[in-house]
């Protein structure tokens, strides 16, 4: 009975999310530009929602909380790199958007092929993108696997669950394109934000009295858990700085390419892209709560 209720809730959310996505694009005539970049007409708020879908993944709940639980202070990098990426994309994004708009580019590979006048480079970028997306998708599917296993109280075959989830995702994306994903993000992100608030605020307050209580308890058990070890040690300060920089630079591709440059609408002087960069950092605040969630565990 318990598993039925849990699975019914998950099923309901999936149906509602997919339904909203397909409903949102019912009157839109699909062409490659609409399908891949939403007709290049998404505003800052819609993009923010879309980016929330890319920020709040399985990593947010499992990876971030897991790092906070197992490593302590090094997990702080999770709240920093997204903010750093926002700052960098503030300057980078309008330039990419202008190029994408002029050349009518649809993908990252298009951009590199045109920018450097090299179809070969474009093909290489596409290949690298696909290859390196595989582990990322695997991570997400692993998260779904874990979720369904827990919801099914161990009665659901994990391989079947992952296969089913993958099939559903592919079918949804093929049916609705990027705009459908953005609409679906509205439901999904509202639920995710609710869950993050619950896990990051309610759980610490319920079990430790306050977030301060969590910190006190952590310091009682691990006195050095809240600071980085010095110098070049593993997970030391140098590691922290370099990881924030590297991950922030990596995240530009999401913020600049996937998030804003190719999809955002035309506004004077790249203002839409700058707005998008400015409000993107808000997601980092929600990620902070995941750190508390992990520490509370």
């Amino acid at each position, binding site marked *: 009975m318990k598993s039925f209720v849990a699975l019914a809730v998950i099923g309901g959310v999936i149906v509602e999310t997919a339904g909203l996505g397909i409903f949102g694009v019912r009157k839109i005539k699909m062409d490659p530009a609409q399908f891949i970049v939403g007709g290049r007409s998404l505003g800052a708020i819609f993009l923010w929602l879309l980016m929330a879908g890319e920020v709040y993944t399985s990593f947010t709940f499992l990876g971030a909380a897991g790092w906070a639980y197992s490593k302590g202070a090094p997990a702080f990098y999770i709240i920093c790199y997204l903010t750093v990426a926002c700052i960098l994309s503030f300057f980078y994004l309008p330039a990419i958007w202008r190029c994408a708009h*002029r050349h009518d580019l649809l993908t990252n590979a298009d951009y590199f092929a045109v920018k450097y006048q090299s179809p070969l480079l474009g093909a290489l970028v596409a290949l690298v993108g696909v290859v390196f997306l595989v582990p990322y998708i695997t991570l997400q599917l692993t998260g779904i696997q874990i979720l369904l296993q827990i919801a099914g109280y161990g009665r659901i075959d994990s391989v079947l669950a992952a296969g089913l989830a993958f099939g559903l995702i592919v079918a949804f994306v093929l049916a609705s394109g990027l705009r459908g994903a953005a609409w679906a993000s509205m439901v999904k992100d509202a639920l995710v934000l609710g869950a993050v608030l619950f896990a990051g605020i309610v759980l610490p307050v319920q079990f430790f009295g306050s*977030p301060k209580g969590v910190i006190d308890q952590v310091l009682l058990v691990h006195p050095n858990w809240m*600071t980085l070890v010095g110098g070049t040690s593993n997970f030391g300060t140098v590691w922290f700085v370099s990881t924030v920089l590297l991950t922030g630079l990596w995240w530009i591709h999401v913020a600049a390419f996937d998030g804003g440059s190719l999809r955002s609408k035309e506004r004077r002087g790249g203002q839409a892209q700058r*707005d998008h960069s400015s409000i993107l950092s808000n997601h980092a605040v929600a990620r902070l709560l995941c750190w508390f969630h992990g520490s509370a565990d």
Partner: protein
Amino acid sequence: MIGPEKSLDSTIWNASTFTIQALAKSEGFCASVGRLSRSSPRIRLIAPSFFGSGDCPSEPDDLAVLEERTEQLIPTDHKAQSPSRGSPQSESFLPQDCQTIGPNGIRRRLSATGRYLKSTDYIGQASRRYRSPARMARKLLLPLSTNRNRNQLYFMEDRGETPESGEDRSSLASFCVAAIPFLALTIGPLFANRLEPRIFGLPFLLAYLIFWVLATRVFMLVASWVRRPR
């Protein structure tokens, strides 16, 4: 005939247009003043009025000649897209004292005269100020087929603008504003890596990072406001 006020814009526009078409498939380019020449794979820019030089042809009729001559440098597949005006003439119309200079030379001359070139982008907003016609031509490579009014080049002083009224200054200001949280989040942890003093019960390092994550939003809003066109 085009009027005196539009003359400069149109002159530069036309020169740039054909240069851009010529550049479309070239590997690189340099700019020249008043002299038509080609050094493969470079195709040189005809820009007689970039400096308002009296020695160089600047009237529309001369321009037509220049355009026609420039067309000859355009590859065959580009000729089909090029409008044709005027009749072909020999190179003898070019004054002998017009010298050929590259982008750096143009940049130097612009700097020496204190003149600033500015382009309007394809959405009609003055977006960048260029001292270098080379850079300017690169920026204008694509919007050839769009509205002509959206791609204008002009000397800033002709429209009562000063370099200070351009965007470069605000770009620098927004860059400086954004650099503050960037450095605070990347370099700052090296110095904020301690437990005490605790702020609202949080260890100092965590409180420091939370502060800067929240403050980044404010800094980016300020940076965005600084860059906003007025």
